[in-house]
C-alpha cells in the first residue's frame, strides 16, 4: 500500500514536471523574437548609363537600417528585419548601371576631393511596413518601403529631392517559414525600386531639367 502511494506521488511529480516544461516551452514559443536579415541578389539594369560621375553617400542609418515589427497583442518585439546591407548591395548594383562612374563617399564634405563629380546622391528610408498573413488575413507576405532620394551638386546645392515607394509580395504557400516569405517579399520590393529608379530617374522633373541644362539629355 505504501509502495503504491509512493508510485502515485512519483507519477504525479513527473506529470507536474512535464506540465511545467510544456507550459514553459509554450510561453517561450509565444514570446519568441525572430531576427530576419534580408539577403538577395539583384540583376544589373539593362540600360545605357548617363555620362555622369555620381558620388554616393550611404549614411549609417541607411546602411544599418533595421525595422522592428511589434506583436499586436503583447506589444513586444516580434520580428527584427535587418535590411541595411541588402539595400546597400541593391544601390551598388543599380547606380553603376545608371551612371558611367560612381564614387563612394563617407560624407558630403568628401565631395570637394573629387573635382570630376557631377552630383551627389543620398538615399534614406522614411517608412518601412510589413504585412504578415496572420495579421492581414491575406495569403501573401508584403513589404512596403518609402524612400527619400536626395540629389545635390558637389557644392551642396540641392538638385532634386523626391520620394519613391517600393512594394513586394510573396505567396505564403511558396514558403515554409515566415523568415523565407518576408525575405522574398523584401527582395521583390527592392527589385521594384531598382526597376522604377533605373527607368524613371531621368523623368523626375528637377533631374530632367538639370540634365537638359547640362546637355546630358
Amino acid at each position: 500500500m505504501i509502495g503504491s502511494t509512493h508510485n502515485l506521488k512519483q507519477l504525479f511529480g513527473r506529470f507536474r514536471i512535464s506540465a511545467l516544461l510544456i507550459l514553459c516551452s509554450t510561453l517561450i514559443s509565444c514570446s519568441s523574437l525572430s531576427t530576419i536579415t534580408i539577403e538577395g541578389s539583384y540583376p544589373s539594369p539593362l540600360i545605357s548609363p548617363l555620362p555622369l560621375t555620381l558620388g554616393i553617400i550611404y549614411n549609417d542609418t541607411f546602411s544599418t537600417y533595421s525595422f522592428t515589427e511589434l506583436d499586436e497583442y503583447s506589444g513586444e518585439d516580434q520580428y527584427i528585419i535587418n535590411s541595411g546591407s541588402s539595400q546597400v548591395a541593391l544601390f551598388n548594383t543599380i547606380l553603376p548601371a545608371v551612371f558611367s562612374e560612381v564614387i563612394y563617399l563617407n560624407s558630403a564634405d568628401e565631395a570637394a576631393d573629387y573635382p570630376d563629380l557631377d552630383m551627389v546622391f543620398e538615399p534614406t528610408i522614411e517608412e518601412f511596413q510589413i504585412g504578415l498573413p496572420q495579421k492581414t488575413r491575406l495569403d501573401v507576405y508584403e513589404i512596403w518601403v518609402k524612400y527619400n532620394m536626395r540629389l545635390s551638386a558637389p557644392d551642396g546645392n540641392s538638385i532634386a529631392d523626391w520620394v519613391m515607394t517600393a512594394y513586394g509580395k510573396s505567396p505564403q504557400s511558396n514558403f515554409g517559414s515566415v523568415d523565407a516569405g518576408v525575405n522574398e517579399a523584401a527582395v521583390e520590393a527592392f527589385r521594384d525600386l531598382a526597376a522604377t529608379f533605373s527607368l524613371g530617374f531621368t523623368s523626375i522633373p528637377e533631374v530632367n531639367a538639370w540634365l537638359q541644362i547640362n546637355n546630358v539629355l
Partner: protein
Amino acid sequence: MKHHTLSIKAACLICFLIILSACTTTEIDQFRQSDTEIHEGESIVILGRRQSNAYETELDFVECVGNVVASGSDGINVIPESTFLDAMFPFFEPRTAPMRTDHLAQLMAQDIAVEKLEEFGIEYIVWLDGQTQRSGESGSISCAVGPGGGGCFGFGTWTDDSNFEAEIWDMDTLTSAGAISADANGQSYLPALILPIPLLARVESNVCSGMGKQLKSFLNGSV
C-alpha cells in the same frame, strides 16, 4: 459469407463513385488572330502576370506549362522565366512590364533591349495570368496517438477551381497572335479510417497539361 461478399461489393461501388467524382473537368478555348510558326533557333518565353495585389500567377505553374511546351519531338525552345527576367531587368518587372502590345513599341525603341531579345531569339512572348482557388471546404478529421498506436478518423472535402489565360504576343509584328484560356474544376475527398486516403482532383496539373499542349500546337501553327 453472402453478407460479406455484398459488403465488399458495396465498398467497391462507393470507392468507384468517389474516384469518379474526384475527376476534373477541364475546358480549353482558343482564339487566333494571326498565323504563327516557330523555326529552328527561335525561342519563346512564358511569363506570369504578377501586377495584381489580390493574386499572382504561380512560378511553378509557369514552369509547368513551359516544360509541357518544351517536351516531345515537336517541343519548342522555352527560355526559363527567371533567366529572362534577370537578363531583361528592369523591363518585365510587375510595375514596368508592358501590359498591352502597344507598349511593346516603347520597349523596342530601346536598342539595348532589342539586342538582348535577339540574343535570346525570342519570337513570341506568352503571358500567363490566373490562379487556382479553393472553396467549399467541409468535414473534419481527427487524429490520435496512443501507446498502442495511432490513427485518424473523419472525412474532408473541397473544390479547386482553376482559371488561366495565355496571351501570345508576336515579337515580329508586335501584335497579339491570339489567346488560350483554360478553366478546370474538381472535387477532392479525404476520407480517413485509421489512415487518411487522399482522393485529390488534379485540377491545376490538368490545366497545365492542357494549356501547354494547346499552346505548343498553337505556336507550331498546327491548330
